[in-house]
């Protein structure tokens, strides 16, 4: 049996997300920690997964970590450099789209996995304006599985979004399908405290795993909405192998791990 090594919150978050990625998946990735999770999956558990950027590069050779999805580093040694319209078509097209797993960030998430990346406060006269949807709304509309990466704070896990940028289960239950969307949207939420999932029937977020040293109570304290924690169990901590690969192969300079 492996002994448990110390690890940072960023490390466990990355590993938890990487474990969601299956071999053969096409991983829609942003930059930063989501990119690192995609690289970790490819190096650990899903060697034939494909890293894919909304800007159109597929299976790029990332000799250096890109800092943006339009970073020239993603254009090198790709299978294809396609247009923006092609890249979203790849996700909207169910033949390839059903193989996509997306990793998204957000400023706010609600109990139904809907995301806000647009603003805090009134849309027309916001307190804080963010970058906007980018491809987030598109991806959340099309692909069957999305991982949301979040810091677990009450002001981010909110009862009501200030703006619904990217659709999850909308109002829960059957409402996503009834509205006319495909099944999909955020299916897992990875935070610095635990792993949440969306219940298939209710469309509501529930706590699946809390990290070693974290209690469900602590997670609830940092969540504004009511969340089912009754099924939660402790997460398996990152294994020595996972940590070794993450640290030595994916981010040896700790550019993202810090």
């Amino acid at each position: 049996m492996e002994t448990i090594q110390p690890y940072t919150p960023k490390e466990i978050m990355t590993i938890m997300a990487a474990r969601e990625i299956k071999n053969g998946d096409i991983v829609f990735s942003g930059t930063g920690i989501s990119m690192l999770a995609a690289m970790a999956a490819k190096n650990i558990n899903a060697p034939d997964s494909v890293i894919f950027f909304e800007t159109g590069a597929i299976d790029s050779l990332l000799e250096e970590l890109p800092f943006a999805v339009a970073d020239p580093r993603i254009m090198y040694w790709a299978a294809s450099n396609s247009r923006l319209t092609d890249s979203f078509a790849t996700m909207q097209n169910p033949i390839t789209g059903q193989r996509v797993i997306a990793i998204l960030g957000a400023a706010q998430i609600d109990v139904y996995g809907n995301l806000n990346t647009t603003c805090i406060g009134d849309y027309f006269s916001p307190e804080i304006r963010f970058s906007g949807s980018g491809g987030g709304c598109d991806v959340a509309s099309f692909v069957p599985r999305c991982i949301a990466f979040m810091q677990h704070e009450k002001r981010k896990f909110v009862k009501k979004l200030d703006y619904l940028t990217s659709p999850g289960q909308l109002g829960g239950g059957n409402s996503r399908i009834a509205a006319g969307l495909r099944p999909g949207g955020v299916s897992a939420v990875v935070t610095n405290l635990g792993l949440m999932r969306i219940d298939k029937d209710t469309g509501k977020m529930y706590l699946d795993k809390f990290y070693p040293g974290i209690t469900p109570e602590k997670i609830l304290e940092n969540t504004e909405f009511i969340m089912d924690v009754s099924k939660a169990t402790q997460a398996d901590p990152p294994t020595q192998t996972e940590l070794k690969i993450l640290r030595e192969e994916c981010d040896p300079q700790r550019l993202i791990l810090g």
Partner: protein
Amino acid sequence: MTNSLNKVIPLKQAIEQYVKNGSHISIGGFTLNRNPMAAVYEIIRQNIHDLHLYAHSNGTGLDELIGAGCISKLEIAYAGIGKAAPTCIRFAKAIQNNEIIFEDYSNYMMSLRFMAGSMGVPFLPTLSGIGSDILSKWGFSKSMRKSDPKIVDEKLKIIDNPFGTWTGASKVVLVPAINPDITIIHVQKADAMGTCSIQGLPFADIEQVKASKNVIVTCEKLVDKEELRLNPDLNQIPFIHVSAVCHIPLGAYPSAVFGHYDYDSQYLRQYAIAAKDQDKNQDKFKKYQDKYIYGVKDHEAFLNIVGQERIDAIKADPRTGYAVNMKRD
């Protein structure tokens, strides 16, 4: 090539001729890559205002234009400049201070809108955004839309799939076409007729160009027609879409041009600090603009202030197309 197909003119003249107060405009590139920055700075220097900007994921070009007060209306999916400004700073300020009228879309929606314009159809369909506030919240009011013939009457439409459940969709979102008065892009290679070859990701530049009534191309290299004709497969834009060609080496600086130079993260960080303008005096941004934009005659003079050291630091490695091991802030 006959004379009439020589479209090469100085950038100053191209901007004067094609970018007017009130023009509907789009610029090429994505966040910190291939923004037509020489043209952006020239627009600012010419003090062109009241522009209506169509953007998918724009970055440094967008933020400079907003910071200089050139933009009054904005249709956009995303505004960010990578690590330097995950949200464009003057963009956020302008919205928070109610200085521009804006309307949000997704990246795919904006790309499809340019594509619809390039195809000559009034709309294109997508399955994106149903149930989101992108559909429900309109930045341009119905009355404003009605009164302005250059703005479509409805932001977008949601319809039942007219073919039953064909392809499994029950509802479809229709996004309306965009046909900008002018699109400006920066490419690696163009010839004097305007045929362009983009190296690396084209983003939505091709659709933006083909949707536009007029097109200005700035290019790293102005090459002979013969060089481009040797491999037509690499020329995404044939000359029939292009109005003017301007030869501007480093014309996208401080954004990146694959195969030529990287983004200058130092410049972008310095820009971000100025754009935030958090000092008491609040004159940092004005000083930045005075020094780098208004204080220079053209892009060449701007690059002289930037200095050869920065240019050397971002020079692309010929193998990878970017600056290997560049210090990135």
